[in-house]
């Protein structure tokens, strides 16, 4: 049974999120927050891959999220919705149920390709350069989009609401939430597999000692680009989901504040821990919502929490451990990736 236990966990979370939403047991706001949590889980894990596992320091992750958000939104609005930007839709709005996931994937690919522009020049150098370059890229992204009037420039872009409504008209499902759920599962599976493989562990070796890694035959430059593209591609998918959740996006939604929120979630959860990222994304998103009545003061309270975190638990909630490292009894029920690679398939 051990090999199905992870499936059971996913099924459980499906049963308490997507299923009741579909049955109409949750109001719009709860559904909205749940979707945001899912998006933040994807974002946190994707940034953790770069900053936590690989030990590089990307501070402009929101730019890649923004690329995904804009690309996916432009595609769905252009194809499936009547908008003030492009006029009549090119295809029947009903087709959006198929077009939406494709648009998310294209958004992810676009973000991954955009990240290549950063990765190739910056990974030739070492250390802090990536931080400065990603910061610059975040600025470039914002200024660039602000100057494209066809997608609204600084005023922002909208029309995704019509697309999601059109999907709901075909089959009454919480579509965005459903795809967010799938994106979370895919992200966890892919990143967990990657960092458990000998190839993927190379990025941890790079973090520990890059020169030793290179001399131990690890193609560090290629591997760093792969991991960076994977992280940014996943952020692009999350961006596409985000755009369709809030139905209105503008360039400043994907600026330094958003990048910082992601960094906070990564550090809160623990560098190099997937379960830590999940826990911190859930907790932090709820905290952000709970503190909403504070309005602007929220941005005093949250950084204060970050300072306290750094003072009292600098490794974050989980450090670089996963749940079974903290609760060994979990090992009885879950197959670790180490078991798979060293003993063959799960012994159940």
């Amino acid at each position, binding site marked *: 049974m051990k090999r199905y236990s992870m499936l059971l966990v996913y099924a459980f979370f499906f049963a308490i999120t997507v299923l009741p939403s579909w049955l109409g047991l949750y109001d719009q706001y709860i559904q909205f927050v749940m979707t945001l949590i899912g998006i933040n889980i994807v974002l946190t894990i994707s940034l953790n891959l770069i900053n936590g596992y690989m030990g590089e320091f990307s501070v402009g992750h929101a730019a890649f999220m923004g690329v995904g958000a804009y690309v996916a939104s432009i595609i769905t609005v252009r194809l499936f919705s009547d908008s003030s930007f492009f006029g009549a839709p090119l295809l029947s709005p009903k087709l959006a149920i198929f077009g939406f996931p494709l648009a998310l994937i294209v958004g992810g690919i676009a973000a991954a390709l955009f990240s290549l522009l950063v990765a190739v020049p910056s990974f030739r150098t070492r250390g802090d350069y990536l931080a400065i370059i990603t910061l610059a890229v975040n600025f470039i992204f914002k200024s660039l989009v602000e100057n494209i009037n066809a997608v609204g420039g600084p005023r922002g872009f909208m029309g995704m609401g019509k697309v999601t409504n059109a999907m709901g008209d075909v089959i009454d499902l919480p579509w965005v939430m459903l795809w967010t759920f799938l994106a979370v599962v895919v992200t966890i599976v892919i990143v967990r597999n990657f960092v458990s493989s*000998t*190839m993927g562990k190379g990025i941890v070796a790079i973090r*520990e000692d890059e020169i030793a890694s290179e001399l*131990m*035959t690890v*193609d560090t430059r290629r591997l760093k680009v792969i991991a960076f593209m994977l992280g940014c591609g996943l952020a692009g998918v999350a961006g596409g989901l985000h755009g369709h959740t809030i139905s209105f996006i503008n360039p400043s939604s994907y600026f330094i504040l958003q990048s910082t929120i992601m960094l906070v979630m990564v550090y809160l959860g623990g560098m190099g821990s997937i379960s830590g990222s999940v826990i911190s994304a859930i907790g932090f998103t709820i905290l952000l919502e709970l503190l909403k009545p504070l309005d602007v003061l929220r941005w005093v309270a949250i950084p204060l929490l970050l300072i306290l975190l750094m003072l009292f638990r600098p490794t974050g909630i989980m450090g670089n451990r996963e749940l079974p490292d903290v609760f060994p009894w979990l090992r009885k029920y879950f197959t670790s990736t180490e078991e*798979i690679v060293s003993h063959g398939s799960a012994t159940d």
Partner: protein
Amino acid sequence: MALLQIKELTHSFGGLTAVDDFNLELGENETVGLIGPNGAGKTTVFNLVCGLYKPSQGVIAFNGTSLVGRRPHAITSLGIGRTFQNIRLWNELSVLDNLRIAHFSQIRYGILDSFLFTAKLREEEREVTEEARELLKLFNLEGSEKELPRNLPYGLQRRVEICRALVMKPRLLLLDEPAAGMNPGEISGLMDLVRWVREQFQVTVWIIEHQMRVIMGICDRIKVIDFGRTIAAGTPEEIRNDPKVIEAYLGEEVA
């Protein structure tokens, strides 16, 4: 044909010539020592061979393939394993992982396999793990596979590092001061280990060392450099009695 051929190798850092007209040929399965006072340029020679620096001038060929201008991982993948003066294991990764990652260039599965944990990847990972475990067993390290290297005693860390270099299936093994920081007992163990590795894995060993006991005890040939220049080369016996070597180490005799 020589396994490693170095001709007229010269390297300068700015105005300082660290390696000057270095020549060496290494054959199959021999042990060659490289000695010289501190700052003589010994490690620089290793770093030039491994591609960490690009030589200002000269030829480095491994098995007939020129190494100059190649990136380090491409050079070491050809079959050059190495250890470091100050141990450079990956301290946050288990001993087993340290060995597995050195297998990187031999991985046959692709990136997508690693994302999806395909049957191809599982099969290959199992082989890699099996191979690493066998190597650990040969080195009497099987009990330490889950340990983090930094928690191991110094002597064991050295063994793990040599073990990791052997995962790369090298034909040439570069050992940079393997006896540094060892006590006399550990040094004897190390000498036995190097002799055994050379026999067992049929490698050529090129060793930098300050401990004359090690150098004289295991090397077939020795090369001595000082200020980047070769001052002597020959058998241990010849080197021991070479006045230039004695001068370099002990200073010129006052007339």
